[in-house]
């Protein structure tokens, strides 16, 4: 009972006479420490927020206007014909909800040079009925100056409404006619009004119009995408019982080819499809935090080292080890707390900077999303602060222990003193981590809600291997320094080498931090490079037609906008064309998640159209009486059809079965594609809208001349030759790796900061050595050289061990993680040039860090 107050008193005494004074004396330094924590926590927070904002509204752009919907009525192919809408009429009568039909599609604005400029989501809503919606009433959105002029804008040919942000982005004013490309046609949309949107909720890439207007602009007459259901009494939407009742009432009269579900389900389903992607991001950002924690560790450790004499003196004065331990841990927590609070702000800024980029990636890879305003929830605050505290606690542990191991002053006075972290010197830990990683590869992939797979074992292995190699990197340091020693002839290099070979735990720590970053970055190098190589290879084989035709301007794998079928018919009647492989695509609904059904000329696919076959046509036996299909590798893996079988899909015409007779490689999407005969596709989906076509010309025609002629004749279509198509595809590909690149950069920057701090702490610890050297006549220049060599040595070791970690990562990413989560077989490419360049860069950075920190150390001493 008596001890506690004493502990508090002592702690307070310690804080007031030492810690706080250190804070005050080195405001800048502690500011930096807090900033480091803030960057770590901020990176995690920022990515969370940005990925949430970027993927918040999968395809439900209209909700910026109509408000959150409670239920969705969809068709499996995400297209509803107006005739099916009539079947919903009975639902229309009920005043407890509002039915909001939505048509949406992408169009592209044309710049002055007539080239595609900006992609816009075109949303068609019943602008008149919109006036009944609780949210619209609340927001007081007005679609015209005067309501009584409704007949002037309802059903106009091309009037659209945009938000203020959109008007700024387009530089458009009311009445402007904006040239656009839509469904392969060149058209114009007219800005009817700029919506007064005080909260700025309307995304800048949104244009809104009346349903018939949008159907006209998209050449999709008589068709909508879905019907949203919004409760009239929005205050009851949290009432689960009420929701259930409403759902039952809706379901009772819903035509059976349509699917009803809570809106959240769809968001969850789509989110689950991108879960693997977001998981990748989360893991990368966790690495950022880990590196951040490592920095805290470095920084606190540096503080312990700097205050070694003070600690020793306190120990001589009889301060208990446990009190010292507590004091340092508390200090870590205090820094962690301040840093995480600052990290919330940093995260917001990072999210702000990266959300657009992430949205681009999600758009390109998955479904169209709109960027929601960034929000910070209390959960964010909790997680941010929690992570900051946990990691600073963990990071504070070692230095605090280090502090307690400081001997009393009498012993300290005898020379340089560093107890070090024995953990880092024990190879068993690193080796067991690697072993655990290998074992975890035996784990099967974890199936997530939306039907996508998460390679759990792969991720665990990645974590274990990186950490394991980080632990082992100290041993590499000693080894490499030993090998280098005979080569060191100048005093500076010999000194540096001897210090590295000594392998102090601080040196090991500095290397370990870098290894994590290097492993991560070089692993990513390989994955991206393998991807690129594989896709190039795939392109070589797959795309051997003369010309490729697609909708102009619209990009994104999840975008199934399509081309006006009449326009396609017109194009295909061109006399130069010998044969055309026309592709139709639509979404189809398996039991879980979503997949893609393609309608193609199967006869041509069997022989004329080249593919990389995982299982060539005929090698699987398709079930008799079931529609034969060629399926993609991703489809086969996702639905366990590698050895054939039957798969049921929900389509607008009901539930249909397909049976594969061959498997092709496809790197176009990870949802999986099943290709069936075009005619069946048309009857199953009720649509004849193609997405693209590969043209094979008659021999006597020259490809580029035909291309140029078609381009002039069909200005709304992209007509490309094989080379051009490849460039575009690789462009999309690069786009998808933007976020990864940015994260690697953050990782490297943090690692560089860590190296600087680590070296500073190393030099601090060697204070006595430097003093002696000065007396021995060691010049400042020699000192700087020696420090730079030391840094370079750390860089070299980090590169070597990081590259081993990186190769392991690359192997994991290509052979385990990609196969399990995307269903893609990639050819493992090791970009040797990049590896070498990276090594040189790293040694340079190490050298430079040594130089800078030694200079700073020297400057501080004076």
């Amino acid at each position, binding site marked *: 009972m008596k001890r506690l107050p004493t502990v508090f008193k002592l702690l307070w005494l310690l804080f007031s006479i030492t810690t706080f004074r250190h804070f005050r004396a080195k405001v800048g330094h502690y500011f930096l420490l807090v900033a480091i924590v803030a960057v770590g926590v901020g990176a995690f927070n920022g990515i969370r927020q940005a990925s949430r904002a970027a993927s918040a509204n999968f395809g439900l752009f209209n909700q910026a206007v109509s408000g959150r919907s409670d239920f969705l009525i969809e068709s499996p192919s995400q297209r509803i014909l*107006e005739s099916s809408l009539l079947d919903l009429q009975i639902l229309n*009568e009920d005043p*407890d909800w509002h039915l909001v039909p939505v048509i949406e599609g992408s169009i592209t604005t044309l710049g002055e040079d007539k080239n595609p400029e900006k992609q816009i989501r075109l949303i068609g809503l019943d602008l*008149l009925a919109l006036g*009944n919606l609780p949210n619209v009433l609340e927001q007081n959105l007005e679609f015209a100056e005067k309501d009584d002029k409704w007949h002037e804008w309802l059903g106009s040919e091309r009037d659209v409404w945009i938000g203020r942000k959109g008007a700024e982005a387009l530089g458009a004013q009311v009445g402007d006619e904006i040239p656009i490309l839509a469904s392969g046609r060149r058209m114009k949309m007219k800005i009817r009004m700029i919506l007064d949107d005080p909260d700025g909720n309307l995304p800048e890439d949104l244009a809104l119009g009346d349903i018939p207007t949008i159907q006209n602009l998209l050449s999709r007459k008589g068709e909508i995408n879905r019907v949203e259901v919004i409760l009239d009494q929005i205050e009851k939407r949290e009432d689960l019982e009420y929701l259930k009742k409403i759902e039952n009432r809706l379901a009772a009269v819903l035509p059976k080819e349509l699917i009803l579900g809570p809106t959240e389900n769809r968001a969850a389903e789509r989110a689950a499809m991108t879960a693997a992607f977001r998981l990748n991001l989360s893991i990368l950002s966790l690495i950022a935090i880990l590196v951040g924690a490592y920095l805290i560790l470095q920084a606190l450790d540096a503080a312990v080292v700097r205050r070694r004499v003070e600690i020793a003196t306190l120990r001589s004065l009889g301060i208990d080890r446990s009190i010292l331990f507590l004091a340092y841990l508390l200090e870590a927590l205090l820094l962690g707390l301040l840093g995480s609070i600052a990290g919330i702000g940093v995260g917001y800024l990072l999210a702000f900077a990266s959300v657009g980029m992430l949205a681009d990636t999600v758009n390109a890879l998955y479904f169209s999303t709109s960027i929601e305003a960034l929000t910070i929830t209390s959960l964010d605050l909790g997680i941010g602060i929690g992570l900051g505290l946990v990691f600073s606690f963990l990071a504070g542990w070692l230095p605090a222990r280090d502090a307690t191991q400081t001997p009393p002053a009498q012993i300290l006075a005898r020379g340089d003193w560093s107890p070090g972290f024995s953990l880092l010197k024990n190879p068993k830990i690193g080796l067991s981590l690697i072993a655990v990683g290998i074992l975890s590869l035996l784990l099967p992939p974890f199936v997530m809600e939306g039907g996508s797979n998460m390679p759990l074992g792969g991720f665990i292995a990645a974590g274990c291997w990186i950490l394991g190699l980080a632990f082992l990197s100290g041993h590499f340091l000693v080894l490499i320094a030993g090998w280098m020693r005979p080569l060191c002839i100048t005093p500076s290099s010999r000194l540096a080498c001897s210090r590295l070979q000594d392998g102090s735990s601080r040196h090991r720590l500095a290397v370990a931090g870098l290894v994590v970053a290097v492993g991560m970055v070089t692993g990513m190098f390989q994955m991206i490079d393998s991807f690129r190589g594989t896709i190039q290879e795939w392109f070589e084989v797959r795309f051997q037609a003369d010309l490729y035709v697609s909708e102009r301007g619209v990009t994104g794998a999840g975008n199934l906008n399509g081309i006006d079928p009449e326009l396609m018919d017109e194009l295909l009647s061109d006399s130069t064309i010998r044969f055309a492989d026309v592709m139709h695509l639509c979404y189809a609904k398996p039991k879980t998640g979503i997949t893609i059904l393609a309608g193609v000329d199967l006869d041509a696919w069997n022989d004329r159209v080249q593919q990389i076959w995982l299982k060539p046509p005929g090698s699987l036996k398709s079930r008799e009486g079931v529609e034969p299909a060629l399926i993609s590798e991703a489809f086969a893996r996702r639905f366990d059809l590698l050895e054939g079988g039957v798969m049921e899909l929900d389509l607008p015409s009901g539930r249909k079965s397909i049976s594969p007779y061959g498997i092709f490689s496809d790197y176009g999407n990870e949802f999986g594609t099943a290709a069936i005969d075009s005619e069946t596709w048309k009857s199953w989906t009720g649509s004849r809208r193609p997405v693209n076509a590969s043209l094979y010309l008659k021999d006597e025609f020259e490809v580029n001349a035909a291309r140029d002629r078609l381009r002039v004749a069909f200005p709304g279509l992209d007509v490309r030759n094989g080379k051009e198509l490849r460039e575009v595809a690789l462009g999309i590909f690069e786009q998808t790796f933007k976020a990864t690149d940015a994260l690697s950069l953050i990782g490297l920057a943090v690692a560089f900061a860590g190296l600087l701090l680590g070296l500073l702490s190393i030099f601090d610890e060697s204070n006595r050595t430097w003093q002696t050297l000065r007396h021995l006549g060691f010049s400042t220049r020699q000192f700087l050289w020696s420090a730079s060599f030391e840094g370079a040595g750390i860089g070299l070791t980090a590169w070597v061990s990081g590259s081993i970690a990186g190769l392991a990562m690359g192997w994991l990413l290509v052979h385990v993680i990609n196969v399990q989560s995307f269903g893609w077989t990639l050819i493992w490419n090791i970009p040797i040039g990049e590896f070498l360049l990276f090594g040189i860069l790293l040694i340079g950075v190490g050298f430079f860090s040594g130089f800078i920190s030694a200079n700073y150390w020297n400057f501080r001493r004076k």
Partner: protein
Amino acid sequence: MKFIPFMFLLIHLFSHGEWIQPPLRTSTGFRVPSPDHYPNFPRDHGAHREYALEWWYWIGHLRSVEDKREFGFQATVFRVAGDPTDANKLETSLFGSRQLHLAHSALSDLNSGEYIHCERILREGWQAKVSTKTLSMKVGGIEAGLLTKKEGHKISVRYPNGAVLRLALIPSKPLVRFGDRGLSRKGSEPASVSWYWTYTRLEAKGTLFYRGVERKVEGLAWMDHEISSSQLGKGLVGWDWTCMHLNDGTELKAYRLRTEEGSCDPWSAVYWINSDGSTTSVKSENFNWLTEKFWKSPKTKLEYPTSVKIIVRHPTRGVCTYRIRPLIENQEFHGNRADNAYWEGACEVLDSTNKRIGKAYLELAGYGGGLGARLN
């Protein structure tokens, strides 16, 4: 609530004596109701799309057969036409662009005091369909049509929380065609005329599903159908309108148009519908509409004169007094827009000795809730 978006539809129910010949079309191109038109049913129950404005209006008092609970109901469907000259419209059968409809429905539970109501503004198409050939319409939650033997019509009205009223309405009196030569004139502008047809006494029978219980109900109802193409005169701020089913088998309709100065517009009038269906009317100088009590809405804070006394000089019976008392106070209809509130509800009618002589529906518009003139 038939007046609210249609202040311009004000009906002048009695002739000022001299005949003003209406033009064939308005300046905006809509057709103008012609004189001496005898409605040709079932065609004239349907929509008249060439005319700018049209509404169908049902109110009534109901009583449940078993537990004798009393209810009042209102259902109104409006049709507003767009520009008749605009040919460049895109429209599909599901998303029409030329006509829009409003549906107002309300139910007063006179025992519990609960009042539920709902408004929808819809374009013609999948959510609003009104036949041009007969009485057949489905606008939001209101559906109406002819009975199979055409002896009357049926309506069904859906209310919030799943409540549904289904009624068969059979007229016990012939249709009343208001106005001189079948034209109800509402202003001195030549085109200010309408066709105004009313079934003043309908025997109502049906069911009401309400709060999870289905009840057989019966009672008396009233139905208006008006077609016009003209706008309302300036200087009016609102109106008070009532229709009464009197116990003696007659009906009374009265309204006053309130001017900005607070006076009663000369077009205001009182109509008696006699037992045989013939009508007697007096104009504004022959009656007084006095407020006896105000009710203040807790939601909109607007004040409505819900208890009124009408003192009117009948051409033959002399001075008559009708006191209208709301059966429940809160029968305020607030539409989608906050500025569109009015009061319309079930009332009882007392004579000068406070004896109940009938039941009424009373409509009070323009008391700060605006006139809903957004669509006119």
